[in-house]
């Protein structure tokens, strides 16, 4: 399978040619002259089906997906599993820093709250922050990357230089500085991760945009009088998107790790602890010196499981979207 086959959206073939592998699509060559939009939709859904069939064959990708679905369900069901008062500091019912018992399968924290309940509620925060931060960074990265690649003049060069600057600045010190200035809150941590992690995406998108811009169909679009906006939104973006999506999955993994680190350093929302926030609680309340392994082990294991799941899915998607890059996975 070539790169082009995996890319949905307007590929190089003119609108008059039927989709090359559209056997399952409703508009076959015999169904009369199909409309351009229906043709595009059929081609896209065929590409999606092909990608899914390929994804299903990857054992590690499917394992990652399974883990994610599990964590997603737990996060959604948190209020059903543990009513909100179980993680309130004042309504806690357990002994402080008690090892696992039947009532508290993962023990308790310094104020007697169930670690299991904290971890289940933490899943919501960690996942939401990871996804929202990735969305933000992907938006910034894609917009800057497409523009940097599309505009050849000083504007593109300036955007590219700007990306390079941001790429070099070390992430954690920058994030700490930003989070200190903005203050500790859930929204701010999303902003901080989003604003600091886009340069990688921008660089990737720019490279892909440059490759796409050299293709004949963009020359054709220009010759027919298509403006910059039309070229970018209708031709460049649809061809860059699959790569961005694969990259996004890998970005979520990084965003969740970043969130964990920042929360551990005390920059998260203290009232809604994520997994990193729980680890911060364990560290600052001396869980380690009393050997309270049940306080430290579960949140970290959850981070590893979710980050690994996103990484495996991302690597599988990368192989599907860009087989040449993917061979290394």
């Amino acid at each position, binding site marked *: 399978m070539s790169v082009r086959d995996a890319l949905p959206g307007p590929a190089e073939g003119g609108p008059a040619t039927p989709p090359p592998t559209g056997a399952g699509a409703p508009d076959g060559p015999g169904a009369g002259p199909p409309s351009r939009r229906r043709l595009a939709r059929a081609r896209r859904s065929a590409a999606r089906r092909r990608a899914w069939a390929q994804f299903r064959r990857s054992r590690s990708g499917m394992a990652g997906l399974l883990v994610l679905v599990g964590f997603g369900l737990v996060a959604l069901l948190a209020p059903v599993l543990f009513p909100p008062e179980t993680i309130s500091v004042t309504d806690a019912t357990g002994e402080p820093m008690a090892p696992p018992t039947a009532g508290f399968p993962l023990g308790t924290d310094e104020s007697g709250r169930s670690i299991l309940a904290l971890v289940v509620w933490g899943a919501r925060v960690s996942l939401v922050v990871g996804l929202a931060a990735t969305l933000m960074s992907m938006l910034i990265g894609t917009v800057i990357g497409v523009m940097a690649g599309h505009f050849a003049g000083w504007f593109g060069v300036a955007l590219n230089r700007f990306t390079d600057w941001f790429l070099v600045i070390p992430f954690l010190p920058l994030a700490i500085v930003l989070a200190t*200035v903005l203050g500790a809150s859930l929204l701010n941590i999303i902003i901080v991760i989003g604003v600091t992690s886009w340069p990688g995406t921008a660089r990737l998108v720019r490279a892909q945009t440059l490759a796409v811009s050299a293709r004949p169909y963009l020359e054709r679009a220009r010759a027919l009088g298509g403006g910059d906006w039309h070229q970018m939104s209708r031709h460049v973006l649809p061809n860059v998107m699959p790569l961005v999506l694969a990259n996004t999955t890998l970005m979520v993994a990084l965003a969740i790790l970043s969130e964990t680190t920042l929360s551990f350093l005390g920059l998260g929302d203290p009232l809604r602890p994520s997994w990193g926030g729980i680890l911060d609680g364990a560290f600052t309340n001396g869980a380690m010196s009393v050997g309270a392994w049940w306080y430290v082990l579960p949140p970290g294991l959850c981070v590893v499981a979710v980050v690994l799941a996103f990484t495996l899915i991302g690597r599988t998607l990368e192989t599907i979207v860009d087989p040449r890059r993917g061979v290394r996975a």
Partner: protein
Amino acid sequence: MGPGARYALRSVASGLGTLLFVVVFNFFLFRMLPGDPIGLYTRGRNVPPEQIEALRAELDRPLLEQFVTYLANPFASTINSARYNQPVWTLIGDRVWATLLLVGTAIVLASILGTWIGIRAGWRRGERFDRVSTGVTLTLYSMPEFWLGMILLITFGVGVGFVPGVFPIGGIITPGVDPTSLAGVLDVMWHMVLPVTTLMVVYLAEYALVMRASLIDELGEDYLTVARAKGLMDKVVRRRHAVPNALLPTVTLILLNLGFVVSGAITVETVFSWPGLGLLSYDALRGPDIALLQAIFLLFSIGVIVANIIADLLYAVLDPRVRA
């Protein structure tokens, strides 16, 4: 001017551009903080009135004038650390060596082990060693380094169940031991075991993945087919032909990813109370100690920018194709 000199000039200029950007950003970001700056800079500390007067006089100058002074010499800050009431650069100077010792040891060990694993896995891609090592390195790569440190600390420092805690739970040396004596050196090494292991394991995962990927990139190249066609042994093809070429991107990536090393140092030093720059950053941010935070951010950025310039130049020296 030859193409090599032009390339060198360009990468140095780009590095200086980034540096200027960091300095400007660093200056204006902290001027945006809400509230009385005097309170922020002296938080929770008894300061003699004349010092407050000096600080106020400094901060009352026009913003542009302050900026020009800062730009002229970003290291000559007149504002003391709020927590330690000392010039920030003195504090940083005291802490640099502990960090260099810890991080340097971890990087050396990790790059040796990591490249070895990467070469073995990449050369026989898909075989058992590769599958196991890739699984392990990906898992380690998904791990928050400070969490690994906490687990090691609880298990081998404090002791869990039948595992006795034999290693020190923090610090760089037992109080009262002379660091220049042999006993002192051994004591420091004993304190280094857990934090170095933590950092090494996390760095190693990255280096092994990078080395494996770049070796696999070389596998399809024609010169390897030629080497094999000459009848060279597999071992020689790997050692003399494939690995030297694959090492190139790995070496530069190790330098380029210094930002990642810095992150590890901040959190792992915090967990092990290692008295270096990382722990200083943690203290500064918990304050928050604005003057100190500003200085540390500048220092880390400079370190990473310089490493990037070196990586660029090194790459050009090692691979002449880049210079074109």
